[in-house]
């Protein structure tokens, strides 16, 4: 393993999950030399590697109906042009993995392209990147972007583990594919997803959009990370006294969260048909691990459950997408996957696994190719300077209580009574706490905590500005939609962030 390094390349991709891997493929196919840096290891890191992404996968003839259905249910912020592009690109590109991913065949012998299992998918993408000559550097978290005097982005700087030595990559363009953030909720696979890209982009002058739509949760057995919801489709829920709770139907989050605020909640999976029980280990190989290891049969015995917040991962906020190439509105800076906002196609509801996965694939293709074209127009590969601020320049001074600040961020962004059941008074109180935390972090070396704190403040500010209920953003003090707010909300700025609705809906 190389320790510290300094490399020059055409395109730098930051983040080695699904979106970053697809961005590297897109940039390489467009003729660029590509370096990809990943905080963990490309193949196991991120929320795709540990799950099983379906993709929004609709045959051409069925697309108008699928798009119309999505538009009708998603709160009026999204744009059919983006949906058409995503469906078209996903349909075209996903089967090209057939030589590295063993697509399952159904009983009719037909390949099932849309649903891929996470570890196998990421292993296949790693193989592809190695085949096409992408330089992958694992265990190399990026910490700040490099910027030229004219404002264009020319690379990034970070540290390498183990050892913590510095690295620098100078490039003609950068793709941020750093994922969303769950604010360290124990959502499976999300520990590294601390919103680093949001902070880096904002420091470069980019805006964010959709940050108020963060109230998405996934059920898991209590104390575990196993946010695999499929088997809970047949769950029965109980309170501590053993009384059956009326939780069921398409949305269990709000009734389950309300019950969890009253006390512990238990579930069993006794209604699961026998043939499905037999298939569960080879559908979701990790789902039964906790039960087997604890000696609990979930089909006959009750077990405690919880909800883990998904933040901007299955929520939809992120860096605003300003053009068809997924440019971030800053020359040389492009975004892909959950690092980008998804409000322009998902609307005001969760993108779920399917739509967000199709976006990660297609935005990766577009951002990678766009970055390659940008880099081809520019010969400049040196001279850009680091622009990172909070969390990178420790000044000494009083010791900062990092666990206490993380607890404040999590209280604001994950607590059911604050982040799910929302109210202007509570949102403002959370923001005041985190404004204080942000100023404390200024002279620290706590970069990931700074990124989570910044992300939380943008989310709270957007949630306060959206003084209405729309989609997954439900305000107890404004329980109806406000037609004047049928538009996206942009946020920008670091020390004094500002939120404002877009003047009018923007077409793609």
């Amino acid at each position, binding site marked *: 393993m190389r320790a510290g390094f300094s490399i020059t390349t055409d395109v730098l991709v930051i983040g080695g999950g699904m979106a970053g891997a697809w961005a590297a493929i897109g940039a390489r196919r467009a003729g660029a030399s590509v370096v990809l840096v990943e905080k963990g*290891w490309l*193949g*196991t890191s991120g929320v795709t590697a540990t799950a099983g992404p379906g993709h929004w996968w609709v045959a051409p003839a069925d697309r108008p109906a699928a798009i119309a259905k999505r538009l009708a249910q998603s709160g009026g912020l999204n744009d059919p042009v983006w949906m058409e592009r995503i469906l078209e690109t996903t349909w075209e590109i996903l089967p090209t993995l057939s030589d590295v991913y063993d697509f*399952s065949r159904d009983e009719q012998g037909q390949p099932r392209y849309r649903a891929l299992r996470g570890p196998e998918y990421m292993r296949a993408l790693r193989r592809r990147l190695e085949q096409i000559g992408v330089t992958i550097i694992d265990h190399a978290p990026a910490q700040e972007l490099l910027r030229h005097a004219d404002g264009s982005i020319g690379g990034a700087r970070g540290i390498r583990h183990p050892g913590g030595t510095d690295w620098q990559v100078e490039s003609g363009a950068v793709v941020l594919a750093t994922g969303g953030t769950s604010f360290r909720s124990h959502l499976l696979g999300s520990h590294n997803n601390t919103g680093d890209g949001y902070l880096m982009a904002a420091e470069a002058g980019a805006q964010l959009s959709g940050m108020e739509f963060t109230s998405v949760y996934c059920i898991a*057995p209590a104390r*575990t990370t196993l946010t695999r919801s499929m088997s809970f489709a047949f769950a029965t829920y109980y309170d501590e006294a053993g009384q059956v709770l009326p939780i069921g139907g398409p949305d269990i989050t709000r009734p389950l969260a309300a019950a969890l605020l009253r006390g512990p909640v238990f579930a069993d999976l006794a*209604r699961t*048909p026998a043939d499905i029980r037999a298939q569960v280990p080879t559908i979701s*190989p990790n789902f039964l691990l906790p039960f087997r290891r604890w000696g609990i049969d979930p089909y006959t015995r009750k077990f405690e459950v919880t909800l883990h917040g998904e933040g901007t991962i299955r929520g939809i906020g992120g860096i605003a997408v300003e053009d068809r190439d997924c440019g971030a509105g800053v020359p040389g800076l492009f975004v892909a996957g959950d690092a980008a906002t998804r409000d322009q196609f998902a609307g005001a509801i969760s993108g779920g696994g399917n739509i967000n996965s199709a976006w990660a694939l297609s935005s990766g293709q577009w951002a990678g190719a766009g970055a390659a074209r940008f880099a081809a127009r520019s010969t400049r590969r040196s001279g850009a300077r680091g622009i990172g601020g909070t969390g990178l320049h420790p000044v000494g001074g009083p010791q900062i209580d990092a666990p206490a600040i993380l607890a404040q961020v999590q209280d604001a962004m994950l607590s059911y009574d604050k982040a799910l059941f929302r109210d202007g008074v509570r949102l403002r109180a959370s923001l005041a706490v985190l404004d204080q935390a942000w100023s404390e972090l200024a002279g620290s070396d706590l970069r990931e905590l700074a990124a989570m704190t910044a992300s939380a403040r943008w989310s709270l500010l957007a949630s306060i500005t959206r003084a209405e209920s729309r989609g997954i953003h439900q305000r107890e003090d404004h329980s109806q939609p406000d037609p004047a707010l049928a538009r996206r909300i942009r946020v920008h700025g670091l020390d004094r962030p500002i939120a404002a609705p877009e003047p009018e809906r923007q077409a793609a």
Partner: protein
Amino acid sequence: MIEFILSDACNACGTCAEVCPTGVFDAVPGQPPVIARAGDCQTCFMCELYCQQDAIFVGPDAERIEGFDAQTTRISGLMGEMRRHHGWDEWALGGHYPNQHWRMEDVFARARAAAE
């Protein structure tokens, strides 16, 4: 959270230290890796998947080390279950563990139908 590495099953290949997304292990040449930062373990079970020796065990509790006994766990048959059910490595052969992930949408559809 990471519980233990079976030192006599480990072949010191270093793969777990390489693939762990949060840097829990320190590789030691010719020796089993050291669990150096258990508190950073995100309980994702990826190290188990990539351990061809089935020498690593992760406890389900993401918040604390539960203290699973290595020898008891070893004879329980729980080592390597993640890798086996995935049909990973040699388990891809023979067709006993096919990747049925694609059936997930059918399971959800069955549940919706059962509820109506």
